Each structure stands twice: as C-alpha cells, then as structure tokens.
C-alpha cells in the first residue's frame, strides 16, 4: 500500500501540477490562532504542512521565522502542544501530509523513542530536523523506519552530485532542495543557476525533489514548479501574518496568498 506522501505526489502528477508544501511556525502568534492559520492553509490548497516547532536558537532561519519562533515561545508554545494540535488537524484532514519540522534539540529533549511512537499514533508522516544532516541521522533514522515515518533530508547548492546520490538513495518521502544558498528568508530574485541545478538534482534522486527557501511570489513558484515535484513556502506566507492589521484580516491575506500559490503550480503544456 502506498503511503500518504507518495499518494500526494501521485495525485499532483495526475493533476499536472507540483505539490504545495507550506511551512508554518506553530504557536505563532499563539497556539489557538496557529491552528486556524494551518487549517486555513489546508483549505486554501496546501498539500503538505511542515509543522515548525519553535526553538530558542533557530540558527538556520532568517529574521521572520526567528521572530515568529520567539513570539510563539513567549506565548507558551511547546512540542507537546504542537503534537496535540497536530492530532486535531489530522482528524479533520485525513489526506493532508504533515511533517514535523524542528531543530534536533527539541526532538531529543522529548525523547526520540517516545516522539516517534507518538507521531505514528497521531498519523504524522515524517520528520525534518534541520540540523540533523546525513552524518548524524543514525540516532533517529532507525526509529523513524520502525514507525513508518519519513526522515526528510535537505540538499543544497553546495551538495556534490555524489552526495546527493548518497543522501537520496537512503531515504523515503521526498528530499528538500534548499534552493537559495544560506538561511531561510524571502528573496525577490532567484539565482540563475537554480533551475539548471534543480533539474540536475531531480535527475539524480529516486524520490521527489521539492524546492524551497526564498520563494516569494506565484510567478517564481510557477517557474520552479516546472522543475520540481513540489515547492516549499515559509517566510513569504509568515510575513503576511505580521503587521498592524487585525489578525482576522492578516489570516485572510495569508489564505489568499496560499491560494494564489496553489493556483500557480500547474505544469506548462
């Protein structure tokens, strides 16, 4: 039987589009609003949600996610609360992909055995630990396999072709190509070599390659969608959730943005 992530990519292929993967800083601005925001993203067309569990020292993230994490923590976000939220979201959204996304210390502190057991019980599809590279995955990977969870790896523009092969041949689910070198955040322009490199990596990987880090508009999303099986959007959406407007209006802007992204991912004939 195919797992949920495989089914999502199959469905997208049938619909001739790339998958929309949305990163969300859980607990921003608070747990209750965060749940509504994520549900809004799903209702607006997100196929997979990356549930970002805030960490006090998010060294791979840019200013927007740092700020969201800090506010979420001040307002009491914890991994336990994120898991409780994830369980409710799963019950309402049986077909959506959910990936738990965090820094390794947060996961390690919970207990990897207990965490993977809980994720299987809730029906979460996988884990992405941003600071757990190929070299350090041994502590977590066997536990993920035992529980039917994908351990989603990253590759970057600096990753050599041999290393891309090494990383992608030993994994399931999908691989996340960090399209712009460096940390997360919004960029208005995409580097030129990106699309060529993306095609190269897609050619090397036996599992779907999704691209992220820096996608800020439906136009760039559409461009990348021609070369990847999915696109990841984080900061650009999160940015709309900041500002002076009432929260309801911000959430409406956010949902409209997600919808515009979802509609931009069709493949050109």
């Amino acid at each position, binding site marked *: 039987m195919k797992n949920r992530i495989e089914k999502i990519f199959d469905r997208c292929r049938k619909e001739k589009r790339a998958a929309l993967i949305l990163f969300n800083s859980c607990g921003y601005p608070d747990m209750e609003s965060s749940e509504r925001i994520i549900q809004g993203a799903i209702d607006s067309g997100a196929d997979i949600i990356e549930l970002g569990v805030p*960490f006090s020292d998010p060294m*791979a993230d*840019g200013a927007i996610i740092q700020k969201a994490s800090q506010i979420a923590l001040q307002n009491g976000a914890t991994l336990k609360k994120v898991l409780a939220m994830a369980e409710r979201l799963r019950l309402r959204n049986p077909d959506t992909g959910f990936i738990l996304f965090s820094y390794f210390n947060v996961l390690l*502190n919970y207990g990897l055995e207990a965490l993977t057991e809980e994720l299987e019980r809730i029906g979460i599809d996988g884990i992405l630990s941003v600071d757990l*590279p190929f*070299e350090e995955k041994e502590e977590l990977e066997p536990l993920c396999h035992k529980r039917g969870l994908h351990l989603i790896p990253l590759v970057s523009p*600096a990753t050599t072709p041999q290393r891309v092969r090494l990383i992608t041949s030993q994994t399931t689910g999908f691989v996340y190509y960090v399209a712009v*070198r460096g940390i997360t955040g919004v960029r208005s322009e995409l580097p030129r070599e990106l699309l060529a490199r993306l095609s190269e990596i897609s050619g090397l990987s036996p599992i779907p390659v999704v691209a992220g880090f820096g996608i800020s508009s439906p136009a760039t999303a559409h461009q990348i969608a021609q070369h990847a099986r999915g696109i990841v959007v984080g900061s650009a959406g999160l940015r709309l959730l900041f500002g002076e407007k009432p929260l309801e209006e911000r959430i409406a802007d956010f949902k409209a943005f997600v919808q515009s992204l979802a509609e931009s991912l069709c493949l050109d004939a």
Partner: protein
Amino acid sequence: MKSHYGIYGGQYVAETLLPTLHELEREYEKAKKDPEFRAELEHLFKHYIGRESPLYHARRLSQHCGGAQIYLKREDLNHTGAHKVNNTIGQALLARKMNKKRLIAETGAGMHGVATATVAALFGLECEVFMGAVDIARQAPNVERMEMLGAKVQTVTTGSQTLKDAMNEAIRDWTARSEDTFYVIGTVAGPHPYPAMVRDFQSVIGLESRRQCLEQCGKLPREVIACVGGGSNALGIFVGFLQDAPQVNCVGVEAGGHGLDTGIHAASICGGRVGVLHGCKTYLLQDNDGQIRQTHSVSAGLDYPGVGPEHSHLADEKLARYVAVNDPEAVEAFHLLARLEGIIPALESAHALAHAIAVAPSYSPEDILLVNLSGRGDKDMENIRRYHEKTQQKNPQ
C-alpha cells in the same frame, strides 16, 4: 580526525554547511602535517604572541592560603591579554591558506573578538565580529579595541542578546557566505572539526606548562585548574596532563553565578543536561521543553549555555572533574590576586583561582596547584565596579 568524543560532538548543522565543514577538515588535516605551516605558527607564537608564557610561583598567595604552592600559567601576558590569540592565529593562518578574504567571529566578553580582529589586521583580512547588545553594553572597551583594529562589530539583538545569539548570527552569516568567509570559532565547541582544531591550537598551554613545572619544581602538580565557559583554555592546559592521571587531577571550574540551586548560573556540566546546540552534542542549560535557558555569570566570557563536547566526555568518563564557583568567590579571588601578587586577573580566570584558594589548605606545602591564568582583568574594571554597586560590598582593603 575524531569527530565524536564518546556520544558527544558531531556535526549537527544544516546540510548547507556540511560541504564547507568537510573542506575545512581536509584543509586542516593537510595544514597539521605541513612543516611550513607549523613553522610559521611557531614563529608567530614566539615573536608575535610572546610565547612561551611564564609559569609563575605565586608565593604570597600560597602563603596566604596556607597549604599547597600555587603556580600560575601566565596566559594573561600573551599579546591581546588572553589565551584566545593562540587559536585565532592558527585559524587565521588556515584561512589564508584556504584563500578566504574575510574572517568572522562571535564574541561574549570581547576577548575572542579582539584576538580575531588582531590577526585579521596582521594578515590583511576583512573582519566582522558578532556581539550581543547586552555584552556590548558591559564590555565597551573591547568594542573600541576591535574597531581600532579595523574590525566591524555587528550588534546582535536577537534572543538573549549574548554570546549564544552572537554565535547563531555568525553561523547564519557563514552559511550565506562561506565561499569567501572563514568562521573563527573562539572555543572548543561548534561542529567538528572546530572542537579538535581549537584544542590543538590551545594545547601549547598544556605542553609548555608541564615542561615548565618539571623544570622548576621537579615534579607534576596535584591539580591542574582552569575555568570553563566553552572550555578552550581548560582543554588547552588539560591536554598536557591527561596522561598523568590519577597522579594529576584536571579540574574544570564552571560559572556558578548565584549558585547552582538558584538556577541562575552558567554551569553546563554541573547543572545541565545533554542536548544539541551550535553544531555539537554536549551538556546544555535548557528548560523542560528543550529550549536553551538564559545563563548568568559575573564574567561575560563564561556566560554560555553549552560547553565543548570533549569536556562532556571527560566529565562522564571521570577523566577530569568539574566544579562550580559562584560570583562572590570569583570576585574575592580577583581582589586577592591583585592585592597579594600585583596581578589583576580576568574574572573568568578568577573562577579557577577561587577553586585553588579553596582547596589549597587541604594540601601540604610540597604539593603544587597549577592554575591557568587565562586572561588579564583590565577589561573587567567597569564590571567589578558595577558588581560592588549592586551587592553593596566594599572592596577588601
């Protein structure tokens, strides 16, 4: 090269940095074996830093304590006033070899920032130092020194605005600019190969002091004592003596702040749990949810929620012992050394001194305690003044 120490160490960073770390490891391995690199390092140690640093018998302090003879390894006499430059010179040489144009560094007390700015000037490299806003306020003279040396000081306003946040920001900068930038980490923490590389550059302290101790005293010390924040001066001196256990005890002194039981301290081994931060697995100060905790120490250089992974391993294996000294004892030791020996120590080093002062009476006058006096205290004048204002204590007269 060993990337783990027992379960500790490793390379817990995003994939974006892995190729850069692999390149650094390869280049460092090559440099270590290169006679030219070694010769240049030794030349600069001698003629630029002023090595070897003296081993000094603190007679009046020893008499005052009654008991063991206290010897000080005078790293405070190095150029720039602390042990930090041993490491920055090594890393800058490596950066030049790798054709990097720009050095970046994190700094807490500012000593590592100054030592990095110094070698950047020496080698004609661009230099940017990340420093938390809180530290900038309490270490203003070092900010001026860095700027005088031509470095740009970047104020870090995220998180707790101290050393750990400066390190986050430096890692972010490095991730985005590793093609032309070399990240000079100031302690034996961070992802592999940093803990090993920094230890190697600092091991000159231990190698010198073991030989000096045998020459001057004809025997080895009973305890080798050093303060531990990240732990580079401690590991540097321990390396010379680990082979001599159990005859010689290596003792790392952490910052006990207001006391371990108050939770207001920076003692990662004595009061922390295993976790992962800044690229390595090690003892950390964290809350129940795995979030990194605020730390406190009267000395900015020890105010860090983690510790070098090799120390975590040495602690577990009981190859070294780790204790905590609280703010008041460190401040008292600071004054005592100034008054009895005419040496103003860094507040960091004063923690190590305080331990020596406390245990000296339990030894006989034939025994030797070796303290790594890792830095000088000029930078701490304002800190000490503020400390006494807050606690309304008078300087001991």
